């Protein structure tokens, strides 16, 4: 029955590579992956150390959770408070500062809450609250959402009301929603720059140290999860914080703008 043979062949050809070989698993935030940074800096590492890095890009909160459950080998995130808790609970070892980028407050060009020119992010948030200007929150426990909650707290409390929308989606989609609804939002600069050409949002507040966004890399504790690829994780941590890895981060640009500023070693030139 040749027909049956064709069907079986079709099915067999699909089973071949069903079993994937073990790779180094990096849980990270959407900002590092969606901006293209990891695509630019990981290939040289993979070549030199003969290890394939599987990038699982989720919010920082979920990235930490995956580390807690031992489902990834190494975590690259930007949520200092969550990272502290992660280290204190003994889930991670060898936390290293890698780089920072910054958050910006963006909104419609018409700027009904008159934020433009403000030097303080907290003041800007106070203005948003008193003007009840539409604001889209990530609402997903991501690093960006953590930062936003921190700023609302400093501005006098968690906002509520119809003007405050908790979206529960990624940064790109949040920016898109803000654009469609002519609302304000807090974004990392990288995602905003990648998204900017497609929308009409403008940067209204930037440069405040409170908007500083530090990234750390942490190996999942092998004492807790013996199956994690600890030595490959340490190779990645050593490489990304080396002068070479740091230079590649500094050289990564979107639209001519530097997105991430290396912090592990002093700039070489």
């Amino acid at each position, binding site marked *: 029955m040749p*027909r049956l043979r*064709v*069907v079986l062949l*079709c*099915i067999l050809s*699909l*089973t071949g*590579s*069903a*079993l*994937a070989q*073990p*790779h180094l*698993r990096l849980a990270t935030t*959407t900002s590092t992956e*969606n901006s293209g940074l990891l695509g630019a800096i990981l290939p040289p590492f993979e070549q030199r150390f003969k290890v394939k890095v*599987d*990038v*699982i*890009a989720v919010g920082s909160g979920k990235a930490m959770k995956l580390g807690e*459950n*031992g*489902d990834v080998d190494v975590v690259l995130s930007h949520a200092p408070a969550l990272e502290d808790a992660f280290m204190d609970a003994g889930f991670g070892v060898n936390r290293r500062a890698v780089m920072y980028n910054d958050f910006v407050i963006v909104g419609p*060009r018409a700027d009904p809450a008159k934020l*433009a020119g403000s030097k303080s992010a907290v003041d800007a948030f106070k203005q948003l609250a008193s003007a009840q200007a539409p604001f889209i929150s990530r609402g997903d426990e991501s690093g960006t959402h953590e930062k936003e909650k921190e700023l609302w707290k400093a501005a006098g409390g968690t906002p509520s009301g119809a003007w405050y929308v908790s979206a529960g*989606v*990624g*940064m*790109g*989609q949040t*920016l*898109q929603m803000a654009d469609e609804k002519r609302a304000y939002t807090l974004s990392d600069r990288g995602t905003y720059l*990648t*998204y*900017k*050409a*497609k*929308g*009409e949002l*403008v*940067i209204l507040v*930037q440069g405040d140290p409170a908007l500083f966004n530090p990234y750390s890399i942490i190996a999942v504790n092998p004492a807790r*999860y013996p*199956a994690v690829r600890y030595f490959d994780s340490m190779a990645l941590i050593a490489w990304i914080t080396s002068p070479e890895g740091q230079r590649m981060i500094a050289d990564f640009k979107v639209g001519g703008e530097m997105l991430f500023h290396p912090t592990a070693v002093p700039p070489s030139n």
Partner: protein
Amino acid sequence: MEAHFPSRRHSWLMNFVDALWAAVGLLVERDPQVTTAVFVSLQVAVLGTISATLLGAPFGFWVATREFGGRRAVELLLNTATALPTVVVGLLTYALLSRRGLLGDLGLLYTRTAMVVGETLLIAPLMAALTLAVVSGADARIHETALTLGASPTRAALTVAAEMRRGLLGAVATGFGRLISELGIALMVGGNIAEATRTMTTAIALETSKGEFALGLALGILLLAVALVVNVGAALLAPPHRDS
């Protein structure tokens, strides 16, 4: 300080035309990322459909051909299970395969195998429910006659299956359609890893989250094209109808 850029608001139609062109571009370019995503989608959907059919169909057949108390209840439960949200099945599969889970030692999370496991759990009830519906609709005499003529229970079941192949193939096509368009499980237990577990649907979700709507739509068109090819292929390979 304010960034200036030209307004690029397209009409809906323009977006769609862009997407169509982008879809053609994807087919012509043969970008390895796209090719792998198509392959992974097909692999997971086909293997998931096969294993769910092997699990669900015999059960559905068994329920359909037996008289027992609580049969209606089983039928109701199966039909209800077809409403399982994919994210919930994804969560259950994650809990099962996570290092902290029951089968954590296998280290299967974030592999295609994990995705096949999740997708199988998702549609096994659907395959059982559809088989049950199809076989219940069959003339009961087919099964009885086959048994009376001395056929083994398996042989008798295959006779009924052969008679009802149209309905059963429809059931398999429904299951396949649900899997190739599935997102929640693929994302949760696959992890959307480039060139490893990224499927067409997780790629669409990713491009959409980046604001690349035309590319997302283009991948959607590609997905439908792939599903069409599979269905045409299955129709050609299925045994010809000998119904009068």
